[in-house]
């Protein structure tokens, strides 16, 4: 492999880059060094990119195009990543992941039509890279559209969808065998484009029927798939940096998927071929139009309740994130703590829309780490809590997940908010949550509802607590 000095330099640079990725990943999984980990990985990437420029025999016009392309794509994405709101982070991850998938598919297509002499192993790698990359691309775009609410979060399905998916998968297997076994000529090159098209459609069809609430797991799966696609493309190109980095991501991404699915008590297979949406269409009380009683309250009443409580648990949800109310909630907590109230935050594993998303948002508002409690740590505290303040959280507090076997979210671990002495729910309206199901917590006699934008309600509360 190392046939001249220049190639040796490239290979050594790739090796160094791989070491950077490994340490980057290692640091990324410890809170103290996470940021440095990301920076290390970025340095590794820089080394790998620069080394690739040393490759031999490229047209100078192509060099220019490469630089223009990197500046264009990298510049636009870096700018978008800088200006996007913290609440939109999950969709950004989805869209960049999709772009990576598209890149892998394009690399496979380009490599296949460019190469004249190509071995069986490389052919297999190219076809697989094309399939995985394309599925990851369209799948991620659907996930992006759902999170951005360009598409409804509810499952979108067509009749006999599973049959079409199976058919597409079977067609892909047959076409893969054909493409690999045929001589490398115009026909097999054409077939790869057919594979590309079918894979794109399959990606759409696989993710569209998955409900919005499952999107974090879906993105984790697609992230890991793109890693694999990059690794496989690396096999085809005999590029060890791509193989190592791609495989690292494929593996850690799969493990992360497993951790997230576990947090939601969902099996990964269940998410992909899930019954979540199907069951929701069945017996459970979804939008039956039935008017259940609710108790509405005012900021002043809630302020008194909070100010004279001993123990308050704040349950933040996506509604808080959307309203950008993380600073307001910290102000309220500060105010209460000054009055001697014991304030804790209960963080559901999937609060926000991704595990850890809520921690990031609250950290932005300088909420101390020590006040954040994970579900298992705090669930036993609710019965001794005077007020549970639920801010824009819905499904993660729904007692149906614990008690109602017919509920589509039955079995998902929830925060036992309903065990608190009093519950106050800050919510924009009675609209149902991301999973699209009724939350009986809101109709609990112990619950009072404070309607309005979370940020406005919270600042009203802060003012009222000061006066209380």
């Amino acid at each position, binding site marked *: 492999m190392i046939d001249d000095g220049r190639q040796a330099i490239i290979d050594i640079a790739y090796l160094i880059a791989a070491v950077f*990725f490994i340490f980057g*990943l290692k640091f990324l999984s410890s809170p103290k060094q996470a940021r440095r980990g990301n920076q290390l990985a970025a340095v590794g990437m820089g080394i790998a990119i620069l080394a690739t420029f040393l490759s031999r025999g490229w047209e100078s016009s192509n060099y220019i195009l*490469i630089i223009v392309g990197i500046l*264009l794509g*990298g510049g636009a994405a870096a700018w978008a990543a800088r200006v996007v709101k913290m609440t939109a982070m999950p969709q950004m991850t989805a869209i960049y992941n999709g772009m990576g998938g598209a890149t892998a598919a394009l690399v496979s297509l380009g490599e296949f039509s460019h190469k004249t002499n190509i071995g069986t192993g490389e052919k297999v790698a190219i076809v697989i890279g094309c399939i995985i990359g394309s599925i990851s691309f369209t799948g991620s775009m659907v996930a992006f559209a759902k999170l951005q609410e360009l598409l409804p979060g509810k499952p979108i399905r067509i009749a006999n969808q599973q049959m079409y998916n199976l058919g597409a998968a079977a067609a892909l297997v047959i076409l893969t065998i054909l493409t690999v076994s045929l001589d490398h000529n115009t026909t097999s090159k054409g077939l790869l484009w057919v594979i590309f098209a079918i894979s794109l459609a399959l990606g759409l069809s696989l993710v569209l029927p998955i409900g919005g609430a499952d999107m974090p797991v879906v993105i984790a799966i697609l992230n890991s798939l793109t890693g694999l696609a990059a690794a496989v493309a690396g096999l085809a190109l005999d590029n060890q940096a791509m193989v190592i980095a791609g495989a690292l991501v*494929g593996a850690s991404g799969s493990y992360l998927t497993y951790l997230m699915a576990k947090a939601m008590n969902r099996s990964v297979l269940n998410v992909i071929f899930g019954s979540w949406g199907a069951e929701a269409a069945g017996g459970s009380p979804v939008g039956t139009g039935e008017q259940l009683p609710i108790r509405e309250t005012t900021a002043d009443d809630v302020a008194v309740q909070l100010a004279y409580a001993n123990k308050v648990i704040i349950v933040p949800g996506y509604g808080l994130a959307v309203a950008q109310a993380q600073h307001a909630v910290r102000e309220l907590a500060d105010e209460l703590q000054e009055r001697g109230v014991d304030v804790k935050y209960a963080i559901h594993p999937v609060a926000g829309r991704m595990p850890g998303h809520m921690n990031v948002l609250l950290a932005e508002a300088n909420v101390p780490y020590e006040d954040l409690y994970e579900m298992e740590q705090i669930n036993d505290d609710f019965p001794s809590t005077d007020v549970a303040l639920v801010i824009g959280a819905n499904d993660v507090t729904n007692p149906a997940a614990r008690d109602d076997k017919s509920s589509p979210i039955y079995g998902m671990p929830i925060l036992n908010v309903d065990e608190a002495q009093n519950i106050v729910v800050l919510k924009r309206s009675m609209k149902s949550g991301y999973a699209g199901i009724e939350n009986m917590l809101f109709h609990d006699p112990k619950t009072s509802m404070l309607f309005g934008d979370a940020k406005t309600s919270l600042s009203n509360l802060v003012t009222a607590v000061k006066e209380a």
Partner: protein
Amino acid sequence: MDNSVLLGIYVFLLAIFLGIELIGRVPATLHTPLMSGTNAIHGIVLLGGMVVLGEADTWWLQLIGFLAVVLGAANVFGAFVVTDRMLEMFKGRKSTPGADKS
């Protein structure tokens, strides 16, 4: 004939095990940043785009390669910046003062 692919598969398998080991005990707090960080690392596929575009000898391959480079670069830069922004939030409290900004 496919020796290099075989060698690549060795590397691939070792990296798979390493990848799982490395993030073995990641706290839930870091799940989102970790996903975003790994998202950036698979942007390595940009290298493939560079090779395709570099070796392109028709306008058609140039187009495919160029698209691959643009999208791959977006993956790399976008995801690294997003991750950095997420992790930036974690600094500053119970901190080693001044030590964490380079």
